[in-house]
């Protein structure tokens, strides 16, 4: 593991993604070789392995992957919300905090090195999280109004009672809920309404980064659609950046600016949303896209991805996807492919098929060009 790791770091150094994106807009968040382990010592399992990514101001980054791919561990890791035995075992997470007072400017904070006081200051005011299950996240014996009140009392001590109430009502109307919901208990609300309240709470202090961990997975499609529309509206108004985690790639294609695909704790592909959908480059991404039956066209049998996701404590040698990969070569079982840039469009893929100088030809499915003649915009 150790020599392999050093090699890997060197490989990443040579092709450091950030060195290319120099002229890009200011990132809100930048992860560098971010690693999370479960456990320490011989029994440690690496759940997130050397992840590099950036989230730009007001952009949406989609994180896709199956359960156990490390997508949730990644975000709870850099927000430092994971509990032991999880341990951040390397890397940094640079967060650009907005001005906390009028007189101060922006500051760059490494969340990995931050102490408790700094984290407490950043959480909710700068970074907020919306969990998958709003039923479990809301205290069942506290009225919705009290929840909002508590947030403002804790972080905006200068606000009066009337101001707090006025602001709460405003927030509720933003997510399309009536004022009378403030008097309700969480169990009196439906799943969709609870999730709207979670979103309103997350936006209460005008954060610059909102993390959504499968916020709509437990909801019906119609409710999901309404919440997604609401989110788009709110984002247009407040301009917060968003990390959206889901296993539903087609949802991400609509919603996100950029998508990263995770497999067994590593990023395997990173691309603009539309590019990823129209011309996936990693066999796993292709497999994931083919796992969703389409809503159009003739019906034909889809095969998806054979096998099942790997056990993180017994990863196969080389590329973790290689035992399930239809295009696996000899090299895939020997060496782990680095996440390397593929073109100028900011696309990265961790697959030997695309490494120049390889003798294997890239399969036609993974060569398909993106129909860039379309409008080119990735947002809806």
């Amino acid at each position, binding site marked *: 593991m150790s020599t392999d790791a050093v090699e890997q770091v060197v490989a990443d150094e040579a092709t450091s993604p950030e060195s290319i994106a120099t002229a890009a807009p200011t990132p809100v968040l930048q992860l560098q070789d971010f690693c999370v382990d479960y456990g320490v010592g011989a029994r440690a399992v690496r759940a997130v392995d050397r992840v590099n990514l950036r989230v730009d101001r007001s952009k949406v980054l989609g994180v896709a992957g199956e359960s156990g791919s490390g997508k949730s561990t990644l975000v709870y890791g850099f927000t430092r919300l994971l509990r032991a035995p999880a341990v951040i075992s390397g890397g940094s997470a640079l967060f650009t905090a907005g001005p906390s007072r009028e007189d101060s400017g922006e500051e760059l904070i490494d969340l990995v090195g931050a102490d408790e006081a700094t984290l407490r200051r950043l959480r909710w005011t700068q970074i907020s999280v919306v969990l998958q299950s709003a039923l479990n996240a809301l205290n069942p014996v506290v009225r919705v109004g009290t929840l909002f009140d508590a947030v403002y009392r804790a972080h905006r001590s200068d606000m009066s009672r009337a101001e707090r109430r006025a602001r709460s009502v405003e927030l509720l109307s933003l997510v399309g809920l009536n004022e009378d919901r403030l008097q309700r208990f969480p169990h009196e609300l439906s799943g969709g309404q609870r999730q709207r309240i979670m979103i309103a709470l997350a936006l209460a202090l005008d954060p610059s980064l909102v993390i959504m961990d499968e916020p709509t997975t437990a909801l019906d*499609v*119609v409710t999901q*659609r309404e919440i997604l529309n609401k989110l788009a509206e709110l984002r247009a108004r407040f301009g917060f950046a968003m990390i959206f985690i889901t*296993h539903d790639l087609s949802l991400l294609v609509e919603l996100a600016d950029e998508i990263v695909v995770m497999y067994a704790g590593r990023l395997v592909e990173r691309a603009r949303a539309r590019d990823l959908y129209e011309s996936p480059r990693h066999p796993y991404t292709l497999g994931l896209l083919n796992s969703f039956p389409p*809503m*159009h066209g003739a019906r034909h049998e*889809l095969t998806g991805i054979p096998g*099942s*996701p790997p056990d993180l404590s017994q990863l196969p040698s080389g590329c973790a996807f290689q035992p399930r990969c239809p295009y696996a070569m000899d090299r895939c079982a020997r060496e782990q492919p680095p996440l390397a840039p593929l073109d100028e469009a900011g696309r990265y893929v961790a697959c030997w098929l695309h490494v120049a100088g390889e003798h294997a030809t890239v399969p036609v499915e993974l060569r398909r060009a993106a129909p860039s003649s379309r409008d080119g915009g990735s947002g809806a």
Partner: protein
Amino acid sequence: MSDADVPVSVLQSRHLTRHFRVRVAGQGWRRRVVHAVDDVSLDLRAGEVTAVVGESGSGKSVLARVLARIIAPTSGELYLHGEPVAATSRRTLAYASDVQLVLQDPFGSMNPVHQIRHNLERPLMIHGAARQEVRALSEAALRRVSLEPPERFLDRYPHELSGGQLQRVSIARALCVRPKVLLADEPISMLDVSVRLGVLNLLRGLCDDEHLAILYITHDIASARYLAEEIIVMYAGQVVEQSRGTALVDDPTHPYTQLLIASVPDPVNPVAAAPDTGEQNLSTIATQGCRFHPRCPRAMDICRAQEPPAYLVGEAHTSKCWLYRDHPGAPVELAIPRRRGEGVTTMT
């Protein structure tokens, strides 16, 4: 409906209804009757998958349980192989061996203290397999769901298997008793994306190779389109639209189906904005007229006053909506099946 190429119906329901009395939040002790399943008539045919699509609260899971006779219906009839089943009496073992139900949560539906072997051997023994053939039969059941080699799985405990494998065991457990009808209640919704297709293809294979009649219950309309010969959309316990083939998805007629399909994330044509119509719950389900009218963007006066019948809007395609009252097709109703041997086919 033309029935030239429609296979034999194995399980049929006519006007199947199940009511529950529930307390309404914030209204003290007042109770309200909820029509979880309301006047549902459907035919499950050998070698065909019938999909029931609906959101949570549409009654689709209750329908599966009423068909499996785990929950007794309030009224309505059931016919198995054309023979009426005394629907309100206790379920017989014979019925259980013909109609089996696969549950949604593969992790929850296996007892954590028992090995996989127990889950396969019990149904075999209950349904009268000889002791010496039990082992061979349970191995065969695992092979039918492509868990190979079977001896590797028999002695495992549920927590040692993945969700996809457990759901296959769950299907194998149902298949052990050689059912003619398999009811699958959201069998893939708890599974990982990459293994979902495997389970869907397995169901397809069972349907084609062994001529099972399968009821596939789902909230995922795309998977219904992928798998089913017939699609039924339920809203508030009622069938609102029904079609053979993919007509319902490709050309939805009922405003609810249209809303449902517009809401599905679809990279091919992303929707700009769908209207905020609220959600399906006790307060938005109408008690008078069409159940959907409080949320319907095209609601008319008649919708508020009177419940619409099902109109024929295309070939083998019905829609329970007043919009189609002037449609050339007449309102349709499935006939009550006659006993076998009376020489009358079950469809009109």
